């Protein structure tokens, strides 16, 4: 579906934010362009990929890590932040407290992740404008101050979702990463079958 482009790079993107602000729904909208009102907490595939075309000849592939619920009791592992190139920190515009939590996640990212990480703040549930508790200007000025990208989104309607991910893609160091077409492991590929597998399939 994507035309061959001259520049291509892959990046790890992590999602953060309080439970029920719509982290998974945002990704769902981005990856599958669908929305499920009664989406259960994340179970099963919490590792998705999606590409965006930044311009005619530049494609960025996101390798998206969902929290898998481990943020609920402050149990996210250092592994989650490891080598993350970008992060979407989500809050709910109808819950003022969720912005405070988002600010705490931004601090955590600055402590645990790469210095060069690109962070976007996403005020989700824009479709619930009548219940809004967080003014756009308040979040915008915080984002400016902290050096974050800022978007208000609706996973339900799809508004601004692609813009959010494209905005991040434009900020990423594509040229530096483009030389490695895939995140080629520095190490060994464990799934490669053993040269001397003897009896063949294992029945562990």
């Amino acid at each position, binding site marked *: 579906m994507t035309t061959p482009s001259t520049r291509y790079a892959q990046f790890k993107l992590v999602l953060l934010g309080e439970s029920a602000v719509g982290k998974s729904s945002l990704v769902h909208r981005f990856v599958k362009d669908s929305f499920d009102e009664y989406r259960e907490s*994340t179970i099963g595939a919490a590792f998705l990929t999606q590409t965006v075309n930044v311009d005619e000849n530049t494609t960025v592939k996101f390798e998206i890590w969902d929290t898998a619920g481990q943020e609920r009791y402050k*149990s996210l592992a*250092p592994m989650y932040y490891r080598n993350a190139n970008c992060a979407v920190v989500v809050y709910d515009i109808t819950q003022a407290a969720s912005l405070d939590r988002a600010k705490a996640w931004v601090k955590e990212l600055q402590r645990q992740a790469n210095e060069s990480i690109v962070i976007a703040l996403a005020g989700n549930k824009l479709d619930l404008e009548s219940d809004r508790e967080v003014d756009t200007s308040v979040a915008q000025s915080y984002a400016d101050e902290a050096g974050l990208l800022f978007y208000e989104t609706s996973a339900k309607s799809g508004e601004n979702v692609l813009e959010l991910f494209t905005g991040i893609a434009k900020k990423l160091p594509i040229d530096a990463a483009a030389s490695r077409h895939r995140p080629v492991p520095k190490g060994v590929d464990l799934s490669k079958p053993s040269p001397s597998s003897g009896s063949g399939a294992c029945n562990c």
Partner: protein
Amino acid sequence: MEEEYDVIVLGTGLTECILSGIFSVEGKKVLHIDRNDHYGGESASYNLTQIFNKFRPGKEVPQDLGRDRDWNVDMVPKFLMANGELTNILVHTDVTRYIEFKQISGSYVYRDGRVAKVPATEMEAIRSPLMGIFEKRRMKKFFEWLATYKADDPSTFQGMDLDSMSMNEVYAKFGLEPGTKDFIGHAMALQLDDSYLTMPARETVDRIVLYLQSVARYGKSPYIYPLYGLGELPQGFARLSAIYGGTYMLDKPVDEILYDDDGKFMGIRSGEEVAKAKICIGDPTYFPSKVRAGDKVIRAICVLKHPVSGCDNADSAQIIIPQNQVGRKHDIYTTVLSSNHNVVPKDHYLGMVSTVIETNAPHLEIEPAIKLLKPISETFMGIATLYEPLEDGKADNVYISRSYDATSHFETTTDDVKNIYRRITGKDLVLKKRPTVDEEQAAQA
């Protein structure tokens, strides 16, 4: 937390995390708790602050040691066998998608005061300084036999009955010398002491074959190691568990284990909260009255600013000092790692020495290994007691894991995982292949 679960798991060590992952994938509702604020329990990798808190409480971390997060030091040093069971479990559960592995550059053994590479092929045996010319020929014959050996085909046993013959008798058949037996038994079969010599040979032969096949897999040594330290392993399996619905709570004290009138596990209490389940899995630290203390292990973490000359200045290595070589009953294990594995900052190396304690002066027991590492800029030394459960858990539904032992790899850990699984379910663990990222993507398309 205040709900009913199928399984409550206490402690986030590797054994617990693998089991938590397996049960979540099988559809069980799992609550996984750790009283610590980090993953890994005894099998965690520590950053600088955590290292100083543990070994030098109250002391300032020196500035010249670099950034906190550049340090990921294993509390229990081990390597994975490339063809071992943990690798198999990692591949089947596709936890490999979260962790990158690197080869360990070399496997070395100490003999007659010097360190040499463990030969793993006929060619290496011919070149090895470990053996004289005639012994090399005998070793070559031994390797030639192992290359044709198939565990399930007795016609490949060269007429030997490996279930009744002892390993000593097998060595005798090939005419191998005591010094050669030392490195085969201890640096290849990775036996901890010499009791294996009089036991049926099959287990040791299988271990040697595992070693050789592991070397054959990537070439340089039989060992692989996760970037950022072994602490990535429990984190990876915890993530697997969470993705399949497991609930994680760190920094959560367990104040009481609750039992019903029949003495069966019922749940746990943390502060005012109670979580219920019929089955509990936990590490020994949560059940001090249900475990017995066994051997004690000394582990020394040595920070170096140079590679280890004895192992060809490799960026990583294992050096085994067989017990006989230094007049001991237990081998001394040394692992060497570097910034290439993201466990120390650039230009630093890590030497980790461990052995089962035999005297009242354990720090002197590890001196032969320490000598190989000198000069050492920082040493952190600790002694750990190994615990094992008193009972199999069927009476009270509390299934307790064993401490991580002195072996240099994870084969005994995965044995414990399988053993606990069998005790709980009555069945052998059969891992279903989880789809890889690519397969998941294809299914979504």
